[in-house]
């Protein structure tokens, strides 16, 4: 149910472990990459592939914050809210994004392009404030930098 290339990748990943279910986190990333989020079909499919029950897959998906069980925007803006970033003005960064996108934390813009979330420590404390757009890090972000970043993403 994944693309041929991803099926092959998953087959290879499974060989890394003595038990198949160890491959669940990588498998969920593949599902999310292909469908934008983890769909009901993905859950069933991964359960079959890894010899797990559907509820076992479900309990794993819902534990880890980097997976979504609902559709989200094409660009997920994840602003770090934890202490080091907070000391360097993370709140202003979030406010600026809210203002620019016209959407609040936890929301997706009506065109489906952006989702804004606050996340906990991203490990860029010395490069604060930071945010992540999908998997891309942006360090020492300023409100002006946010304007540029969003303008760039809008034209993509």
């Amino acid at each position: 149910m994944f693309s041929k290339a991803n099926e092959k990748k998953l087959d290879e990943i499974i060989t890394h472990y003595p038990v198949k279910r160890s491959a669940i986190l990588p498998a969920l990333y593949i599902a999310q990459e292909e469908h934008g989020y983890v769909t009901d079909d993905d859950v069933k499919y991964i359960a079959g592939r890894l010899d797990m029950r559907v509820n076992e897959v479900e309990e794993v998906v819902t534990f880890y914050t980097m997976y979504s069980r609902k559709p989200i925007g094409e660009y997920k803006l994840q602003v770090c809210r934890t202490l080091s970033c907070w000391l360097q003005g993370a709140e202003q960064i979030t406010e600026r994004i809210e203002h620019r996108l016209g959407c609040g934390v936890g929301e997706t813009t009506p065109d489906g392009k952006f989702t804004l979330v606050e996340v906990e420590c991203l490990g860029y404390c010395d490069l604060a404030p930071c945010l992540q757009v999908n998997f891309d890090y942006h360090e020492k972000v300023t409100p002006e930098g946010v304007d540029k970043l969003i303008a760039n993403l809008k034209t993509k």
Partner: protein
Amino acid sequence: MTKVLTSRFHLNGRACDIDVYMEHGGYQALPKALKEFKPDQVIEEVKKSALRGRGGAGFPTGMKWGFVPKESKRPKYVVCNADESEPGTGKDRDLMRYDPHQMIEGMIIAAYALGARDNYIYIRGEYWYILEIMEKALAQAYKRGFLGENILGSGFDCNIYMHPGAGAYICGEETALLESLEGKRGHPRLKPPFPAVVGLYGGPTVVNNVETLAVVPWIILKGGDWYRQLGTEKSGGTKLFTVSGHVNRPGNYEVPMGYPLMSLINDECGGITGGRKFKACIPGGSSVPILTAEECEKVTLDYESVAAAGSMLGSGGVIVMDETTDIFETTRNITHFYKHESCGWCTPCREGTRWLYKVFDRMHRYEGRPGDVELLYDLADKILGKSFCALGDAAAMPVQSAIDKFREDFDRRIKHDLVQIQKAAD
């Protein structure tokens, strides 16, 4: 100052290429270990170095390795904890993205010492680009015969696989990490048995932090005694500190164990931003008790000195706060973190962190009730030492220490009468 871990950082990431790494002294320790050391001798050398686990707990590394039984029916494993998520810490990030082979070489040596064939690097999912850097480095190491079967003709087989986490702080706790690696929710396991005896897939397992493993090639090359004398008697070697917050030059700095905290802040980091006064510092990641500026004066950066000051060296995440900082707000921020990251397994932590945050939140709105500060203290007391794993302690200690030392920042949040509210609003 002697640079050990960061000696190749000036290459700006070029050491990611195996040839550059080897030009600068890389992959010399592994052949030496395989030829000149029996597995036991590697462990002895690491014991001599007084290296202590760099993830946060500071447990002596050689001793941890020594707990692994020699004979085991089940396969043994070395797992690298690269799930760096302790607030204030970004050191493993740089160790992996600037010098991935250093850590890989250390991990292969560790696997040799313990007799582990298949090994895993559990890296936080957010560090996806670093996972890719590591995968490239591993592929190069396989190609050169430093990984795979019969490494350098020694008869020792070793594989290392990358494994991504997915955004759970608790998976930095070693037994939760193993659960996660087995494809489950990241709930900590009951200890004992410790992972060294019953770990991954039931086999004896050593879980070591990135920085810990990155030190190992140096201990083999230059000797445990050499490494130890770089630091103090009980805290050997150097350590990487991430300094963040209100300093002029935040960043990762490698200093010898026993280095004065104030020198790190004033010399390496250029002092407090804007020439403001120094108010407080969290010396070892958000989980450890806060120190006042005055307390920091005497502290040197080794496990013993920081402990004597009433805090912990932890992961080495130094968060600096200037005089304008409201310690109530910083503690509220940290409490939100632990509330969010509590895995939900045990009641004191799950309920306690939520309750703590609830009280913080009403105080944040200047709606604190008389007695709320005492309530916070008491709630923290009900979590401390009563949770299933150390996450509960990590949530409770910052709250109690902040109240002990910066009580006035908390008292301001209590709604006594209208005058008080007016004052706060002004």
